[in-house]
C-alpha cells in the first residue's frame, strides 16, 4: 500500500485501545446474548425492523447534486458532480461512465482510517458503482463521466447500504437521467436470527460462527440494492456461510425491506421540488 507522504499519516502500527478493554474479551456467544434478548435487539428493535432514516438533499452547494443520510448513528454525505469528458481516453464510448469513491472519514470507525482508499473501501466503491451503473441511463451521456463521492462521517453499521440509497437520491437531485429510484438494505444472520440493518456490533457477531461442529451455524452478511418499480436487483453481495434455502428466503425478506424505504426517498424529493418551485415563484 503506497503511503501519501504529503500528509501527516501518524504511526501506522497503532491500535485502538478498545481492543484491550475487558468487555471486548467476551466470547462471541456472550456478545450475541447481550445484543439479542428474547427476540428484541439492544436498541429495542425487532429483528426485521429498520432503523429510522433521515434524508436531505442539497447539502453541498458546490456539487451538482448532493444528499445526506442518517440512519440513526450512521451518517453519510454523497455528492454528485457534473458530467465531464472521460479523462485519458482515446476511443469513443457509447455509454457514459460512472466513477464512484466510497470513503470512510478518518474518525468514522473505531480504528482510525487513513486518507488513501484501503481494500475494503475499494471493494465498497466497486459495489456502489455496480449498483448505480444499472440505475443510471448511461446511454444519455455518451463519452462522459459522472463522479460520485460518498463520505461516511460515522459508521454504525450498514454504511454501504446508506451510501447507495443516498447516492440514488443525490443523482436524482443532480438531474442525472435514471431508470428509477434505488434503495439498499443490509442484513446480518447468525444461527436462526435475522438482523435487518445491523449496527457495527451486530455486524461483528455475524462475521464468524459461534461453534464449529453444530449444524445450524449459519452466519453472514447480505447487501442488496433494488430498483423499485422494475423490481430488479441492481447489486447483490453475500459473505459468510449460508445455505441456499436460507439465502433465497433472505432475498425475499430483503426485497420487502427495500420497498419500505422508497416512500422516504419520494417524500424527500417532493420536498425538494416544492422548495424549488417556491423559490422560482418568489423570484418572479
Amino acid at each position, binding site marked *: 500500500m503506497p503511503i501519501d507522504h504529503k500528509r501527516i499519516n501518524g504511526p501506522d502500527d497503532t491500535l485502538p485501545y478498545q481492543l484491550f478493554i475487558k468487555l471486548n474479551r467476551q466470547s462471541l456467544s456472550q456478545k450475541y446474548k447481550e445484543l439479542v434478548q428474547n427476540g428484541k435487539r439492544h436498541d429495542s428493535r425487532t429483528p426485521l425492523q429498520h432503523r429510522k432514516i433521515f434524508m436531505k438533499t442539497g447539502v453541498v452547494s458546490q456539487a451538482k447534486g448532493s444528499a445526506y443520510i442518517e440512519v440513526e448513528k450512521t451518517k453519510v454525505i454523497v455528492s454528485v458532480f457534473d458530467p465531464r469528458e472521460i479523462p485519458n481516453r482515446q476511443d469513443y464510448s457509447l455509454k457514459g461512465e460512472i466513477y464512484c469513491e466510497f470513503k470512510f472519514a478518518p474518525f468514522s470507525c473505531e480504528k482510525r482510517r487513513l486518507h488513501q482508499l484501503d*481494500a475494503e473501501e475499494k471493494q465498497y466503491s466497486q459495489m456502489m458503482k*455496480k449498483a448505480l451503473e444499472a440505475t443510471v441511463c448511461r446511454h444519455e451521456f455518451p463519452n462522459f463521466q459522472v463522479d460520485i463521492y460518498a463520505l461516511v462521517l460515522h459508521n454504525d453499521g450498514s454504511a454501504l447500504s446508506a451510501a447507495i440509497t443516498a447516492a440514488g437520491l443525490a443523482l436524482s437531485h443532480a438531474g442525472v437521467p435514471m431508470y428509477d429510484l434505488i434503495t439498499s438494505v443490509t442484513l446480518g444472520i447468525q444461527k436462526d436470527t435475522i438482523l435487518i440493518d445491523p449496527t457495527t456490533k451486530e455486524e461483528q457477531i455475524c462475521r464468524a460462527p459461534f461453534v464449529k461442529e453444530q449444524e445450524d451455524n449459519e452466519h453472514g452478511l447480505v447487501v442488496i440494492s433494488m430498483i423499485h418499480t422494475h423490481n430488479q436487483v441492481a447489486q447483490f453481495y453475500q459473505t459468510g456461510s449460508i445455505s*441456499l434455502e436460507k439465502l433465497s428466503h433472505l432475498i425475499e425478506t430483503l426485497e420487502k425491506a427495500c420497498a419500505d424505504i422508497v416512500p422516504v426517498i419520494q417524500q424527500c424529493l417532493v420536498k425538494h421540488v416544492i422548495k424549488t418551485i417556491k423559490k422560482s415563484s418568489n423570484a418572479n
Partner: protein
Amino acid sequence: MSLCEAEKTFVLHGVEENLRIDGRDREQYRPMELETDVVSHAFGSARLRLANTDVLVAVKIEVDAPFPDRPTEGKLEFFVDCSANATPDFEGRGGEELAAEISNCLSSAYSSSLSFDLTKLCIVKGRKCWKLYVDILILECGGNLFDAISIAVKVALWNTQVPKVRCIDMDGNTVDINVCQDMFECQRLDVENAPVMVTVCKIGDKCIVDPNAAEEQCSVGSVVVAVSGNRLSTVLQTGMGSLHPLTLVECLKMGHKVGKKLDEAVKEILEKSPKGGDVGFLN
C-alpha cells in the same frame, strides 16, 4: 473481440436450444488441465488451464504476528496480477480493477472459519502465526477467470506444505521458533471446505456456466457463486445489468448445483494424484 448483432443472436439461440457454440450444454465446463508443484521456490503451487484461460498460483509462507483482535488466527492474503501478456486490455492500469475485484471476492469467500480454518496457522497465541501469501498470476485470459482462479487457489493450498515447528523458545518478548530440518516433515492444510466459485451468466432467458469470451459479451449480467461444502460462502453480482429477484435465486440454485459437482470432481482428482513428499530417493 467484438461481436455483431447476428453473431450475438446466434449465440443466444444456441443457449436457448441447450447447444452452445462450442457444442456444450448449459451446465458443462470446458476441459481443464491441472498441474501441481510447478514452482520450486513456493511452498505450494498449481497451474490450471481452462480452454484458453491459464492461471498460475503460488503460495509463499512467512512468519508474522497475528491481528490483536484475532490472536489465535493466522493470516491469508490474496494478490492477483493481471499482466498485459494475458490480454492487451490489461495494459497499464487496465487490469487493476478486475484484479482488485477478484482478490476481494477470494478473501470474502475464504473469510468464514467454516470455509477455511485460520486457527491452524497460529504458532504462539497473540505472538506468532504463519502468513500465507497466495499470488495469482494470469498468464492467458480466455474468459471465466473467477472459476479458474478459485480452483487453482484451492489446489495450490492443498499442495501447500507448512513447515512443522519443533520447539519454541520464549524469552520475555522475543520468541524463537525452531523449524523442523527435515524438508519432508510438513503439515498439509485442510481444504475440504475451501470454496469453489462458479460464474453463472444470464443469456436471454437462460443461465449458463463457464462462458467463453463470445458468450461473456452476450450476457446481460452474471453472478459469481462461491460454494463451500454445502453452503454458499460468497455471492457477488458482476457485469452491467440488473436481475429480477427470481432470476437471481435461479442463478444461485444453478451455481450451487454446478459448484458442488465441480468441487467433487476436483477432490476426486486430488485423491488420485500422488501426495508430494514421497518423491526422491532419500525417502
